[in-house]
């Protein structure tokens, strides 16, 4: 690999593009840089000198890569960092609250919270590797959202002001998560299908499908809350999370489907969401002896 090729790879490592898009950018950058290099050589510079000069003129690789990422996926990486760091900061703040105010620190909770924040932050750091798998990124974020949703539910046992403050923080965090997932889903579509006339409908379909997800998550967490509140922690309680799991798995196929058939995907998304909720309800009925 010569100096210019190495430089291009350094640029690309800052970007979340798919393999195909990456190849296009790679070719474009390489041809551009090689052209400039030839110009310098014709001006009388040696090959090595020309390469150095081209790279110096183009700019620092990290910065160029970040700029390209921002122009193609504006704010996505920053949002990921923000969500990851805010999740970790919440872990720190709430664990201190648990230790000094409530006197019941729970290290297990802290592990899950830090893990949840760390995974998102690592995804932001390694955007060139993780970012090209749009569904994986969505799934990571949705798990972060669900976990923070469970946190919101458990905040309700605190005294009024503590509950309001911590819940507000978490709500903003969850909101940012959904914004990221929506935008990420939308970007994935525009990579799959370039037809622009359908983009409005595709956006609408993504919003609706995420809305189904929000409803599934809220209902499931509400049932989980009722279970924990009235019956304490049991295996049964986690049956209430089945609809979320089904919705999450189905979303992988749904993302492709929305891009191709945005109108029809509104119906399939709704159907699967309702079916998932009904299924969990039936399992609960049977497991409790009708």
């Amino acid at each position, binding site marked *: 690999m010569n100096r210019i090729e190495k430089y291009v790879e350094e640029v690309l490592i800052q970007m979340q593009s798919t393999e195909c898009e990456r190849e296009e950018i790679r070719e474009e950058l390489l041809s551009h840089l090689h052209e400039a290099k030839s110009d310098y050589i014709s001006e009388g510079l040696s090959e090595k000198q020309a390469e150095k000069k081209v790279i110096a003129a183009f700019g620092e690789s990290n910065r160029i890569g970040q700029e390209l990422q921002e122009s193609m996926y504006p704010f996505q990486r920053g949002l990921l960092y923000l969500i990851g760091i805010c999740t970790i900061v919440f872990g720190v703040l709430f664990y201190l609250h648990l230790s000094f105010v409530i006197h019941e620190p729970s290290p297990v909770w802290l592990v899950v919270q830090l893990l949840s924040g760390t995974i998102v932050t690592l995804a932001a750091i390694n955007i060139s590797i993780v970012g090209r798998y749009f569904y994986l990124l969505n799934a990571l974020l949705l798990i972060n959202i669900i976990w923070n949703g469970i946190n919101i539910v458990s905040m309700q046992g605190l005294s009024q002001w503590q509950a309001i403050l911590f819940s507000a923080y978490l709500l903003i965090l969850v909101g940012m998560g959904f914004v990221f997932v929506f935008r990420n889903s939308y970007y994935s579509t525009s990579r799959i299908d370039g037809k622009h006339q359908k983009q409005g409908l595709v956006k609408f379909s993504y919003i609706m499908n995420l809305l189904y997800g929000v409803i599934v998550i809220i209902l499931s967490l509400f049932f989980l809350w009722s279970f924990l509140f*009235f019956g304490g922690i049991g295996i049964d309680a986690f049956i209430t999370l089945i609809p979320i799991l089904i919705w999450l798995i189905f979303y992988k196929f749904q993302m492709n489907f929305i891009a191709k058939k945005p109108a029809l995907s509104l119906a399939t998304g709704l159907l699967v969401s309702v079916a998932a909720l009904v299924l969990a309800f039936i399992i609960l009925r049977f497991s409790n002896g009708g």
Partner: protein
Amino acid sequence: MSLTIKNISFIAVIILLFLILWGTGYLAGGPEGYTGFGESADISPDDEEITFVYAHKGESAIYTAPVSGGNAELVTKADEGNYLLNPTFSPDGEKIAYVEQWETEEEHPLGKLMLLNRANGEVKELTDEEGLVTEAAFSPDGQSLYFLKAGVYTNYSPIASEQPHDFDIHRIDLNTEEIEQITDEAAYDMSDLDSTPDGEALMYRSYDGGDQLVFYNLEDGYETTVTPIGDFATGVPMIYSPVLSSDGNYIAFSDVARTSENGTYIYEGYRMDLESKQAEQITSFGEHVTKPVFFNHQDKLIVTVDKAFATSEPDYSYWVINADGEGRERIQIEIP
């Protein structure tokens, strides 16, 4: 900085952060255990003393103190990890009966009935350690103790929390220590057992679609239910901690007087004339009022007020109130 180094340093920072927080939480210490007064208090037959439970960092003990307030005197302590409840003076004031409870490995409570002789400090276990005794009341002659015992600790519905159920009344003869079962109801709920002054009947609170007061005739086992009439915020009475007056003509209890701004019920003290069934509100604390007890020779009561109702930890204090609802005074108790 290369990507690998970035990843490794970030993970290292997070692990370090976890270790620091874990250590901090560890040093901050675990739950301290409850410190404060218990819910129920009782007044001595001569109206001079009260007995109550006080816990210090989860260590529960029974004390007595002058009704006028002042220094408390330690009577007995619970075994480590156990908690004490519902202390009751015997009719001659020489003994105090109470319940000692603890939790099994499955976090189910068990409880035994205890009797303390105040003259020599001797404590006697009256029941075994297999059952769940919740409270007790002396017979008027002081020769026996009636007590409530739950048969199971469970939730009958998946959306209900685990509670003691299958209650029955038992009696122990204090001379022979023989125990007999009085009722055979396996009641869903039964509490606040009290004996009528003539010793012919027992009163308790139960639930049968709604809260009710039940009088159990000890001679023929016949039961009569009484439902107070009054201006309760919930329409139907939600009777809590009823108690008989020493002449047997009144019942005091706490019930919902209104709903606070954030939706919690505000319980106040009520007094019901047993003849007319009419209940009058006799307190207006605006806080959670519970566990009234009648004085024996004066027209006064002691009530417990919880200033932290519906939060994670209660904050109980004891107050003397006049039966007509006029005037109240907190019993200031110094714990040694």
